[in-house]
């Protein structure tokens, strides 16, 4: 290797090829994916997130929730994703088109949250999620800094957490979720991928990719 400019060109080509091959071509394939318009109920899917949920997505990102939670239900044949009730179908690219910052995640210390609000038979509600954030569960730490302890003045707040046992605040005090906690919960409750896109099911009769 004596020719400097040829060497340089080679380096550039090595990077450029991989970039074109992976990034540019996948962008060409799914980069302009649009919402799916369903004639029967005259609605376009996926739904755009509400303002509060979009704020909550920022809280989710800034606390690094994605370091323990994924948001992708894998194809059939990959693990127990569907058996665990995380979703009745695999996640598809269209699910994510309106998310500003996609949080696919890379680790499952905790549960997958793709379809948290659409789980069957029972999805957690706002109360469940606030309690879980405050108390923690299993490998999940408690996020008490998302809550404030207030002295009860006059009537108790309707937002106060109903806690029992050790966690119960001193009498005369109540625990109120901060705005950030409420945004985060609104975001979690917006995670719903129940709508069935035509591309969300593998071709009938075909084996799952992980199966032998």
């Amino acid at each position, binding site marked *: *290797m*004596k020719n*400097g400019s040829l*060497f340089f060109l*080679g*380096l550039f080509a*090595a*990077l450029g*090829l991989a*970039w074109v091959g*992976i*990034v540019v071509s*996948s962008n060409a*394939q*799914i*980069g*302009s*994916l649009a919402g799916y318009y369903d004639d029967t109920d005259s609605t376009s899917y996926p739904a755009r997130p509400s303002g509060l949920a979009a704020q909550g997505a920022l809280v989710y*990102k*800034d*606390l*690094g*929730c*994605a*370091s*323990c939670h*994924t948001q992708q239900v*894998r*194809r059939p*044949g*990959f*693990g127990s994703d569907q*058996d665990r009730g995380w979703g009745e179908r695999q*996640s*598809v690219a*269209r*699910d*994510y*088109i*309106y998310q500003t*910052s*996609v*949080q*696919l*995640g890379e*680790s*499952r210390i*905790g549960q997958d949250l793709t379809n948290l609000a659409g789980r069957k038979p029972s999805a957690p509600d706002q109360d469940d999620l606030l309690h879980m954030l405050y108390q*923690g*569960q*299993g*490998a*999940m*730490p*408690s996020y*008490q*800094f998302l809550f404030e302890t207030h002295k009860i003045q006059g009537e108790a707040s309707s937002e106060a957490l109903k806690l029992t046992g050790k966690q119960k605040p001193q009498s005369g005090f109540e625990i109120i979720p901060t705005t950030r906690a409420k945004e985060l919960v609104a975001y979690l409750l917006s995670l719903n991928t129940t709508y069935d896109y035509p591309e969300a099911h593998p071709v009938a009769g075909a084996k799952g*990719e*992980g199966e*032998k």
Partner: protein
Amino acid sequence: MTHASTSPSADSADQTPAESTGRYPLLYLLGSSVLWLVVSGVFALITSIQLHTPSFLAECPVLSYGRVRAMAETSFIYGWIGNVGLGLALWILARLSGEKLRGANWVFVGALFWNLAVTVALGGLALGDLTSISMYQLPSYVQPLLFCSYGGIAVAGLLSWTGRRREMMFASQWYAIAALFLFPWLLSIAYVMLECSPVRGVLQAVVGGWYAQGLWTLWIAPLALTAAYYVVPRMSGKVIPAYDSAALGFWTLLVVGGWTGARHLIGGPIPAWISSVAIVMTVTLVFHYIVVFLNLRMALKGGSLSLGFVAIGLICYVAGGFVDALTSMRAYAAITQFTVYEDAQKLLALYGGASMMFFGALYFALPRLKGAAWSSGALIKGQLILSAVGILVTVLSLAAAGLVQGNALADAKVNFSDIAVQMRPYLLVASAGQFIILTSSLLLAVNFLKTVITCCCKSDSSKEGALAS
């Protein structure tokens, strides 16, 4: 140019023009790298403890698991690897050019701002400016600064390369130039496609995966191999065997490496061909690892302590490549994906592979840069033993924890609290391993500090005399 001697006095007497101008900027780069290594070790220990004891520091938002994990990664990659890799690459390029290090002042200014950028990035991460993309945990506002300061550092390397006396290039030079040239491209593409005008939906994950893999195969691994290809023949006193194949190994890494990122997205909501291509390419990349092993295998015969570091680095580097190829297969990936097994792989490659090669080269370089031997041989030996034990313990326990986790996750009847209980013993051992690794880094830091300070005091007067003559 043979520097096979291992005696400390001969090491410090081995001076070339490269040291005359490059001494202080390069010492600054190497010194900062050691500092960041210790900082990242502390963060890594905290996250490791939080994995089995989630309540640890949980009341403090700045130290919540997601953020500390990001800080550990950024300080390790951009702080430790960035500084040490660039410092050694510049030194090696200057030495191989047979000339002085040109643009040394630019290196100094660049290094100053690079470290400033890493510091600001850590502050930003602590306050929540995460990107949630692995290896790319850089708040958007520090990226332009990182980019520009990198230019200051890298320009000296390019000048050494273009001004080299011999037209012929050595393997170290290929790897060094590739790393110096490709990082700014990677970073700027990621910056444009993820921050300035983000691509849509899951493509962000595709770009993120491409960047992370590129950072490893096109920047970190070449920097480590620059160091290894330079020091191994000099420390062992033998020419590189099968050197003809080295070029093939080099181009395999560069051409194939960039395609392998999407193997982490197997089964996910991206077009299946992306991960299929990645799997094929990951297996192809095994060729590169074989070539590197054949070329550098005489490091395994031992001889000096610094060669011991490179030998362990070589074993981990090659093992990491084979494990990557194995776990990219769908049947294995279905189990190891999303588990701490992937943390074990990362540690094996980044710490076991790249960092151990850097340590070996650092122990080789400092006496020559400073003109004085390392202050303590016992501390070097201590670091070698502790880091080897630390890597072994942490990688094996994390891998075991990952397999337990993966198998439990695959069984829908096992709930998450039970998985945490099953993993806990292994994670406790991993924390002990992280502690050992941190201790080994501290030994290096102490030794570095002692060497630089004592020889500054001792040599100031003698150096003036030497310069006058």
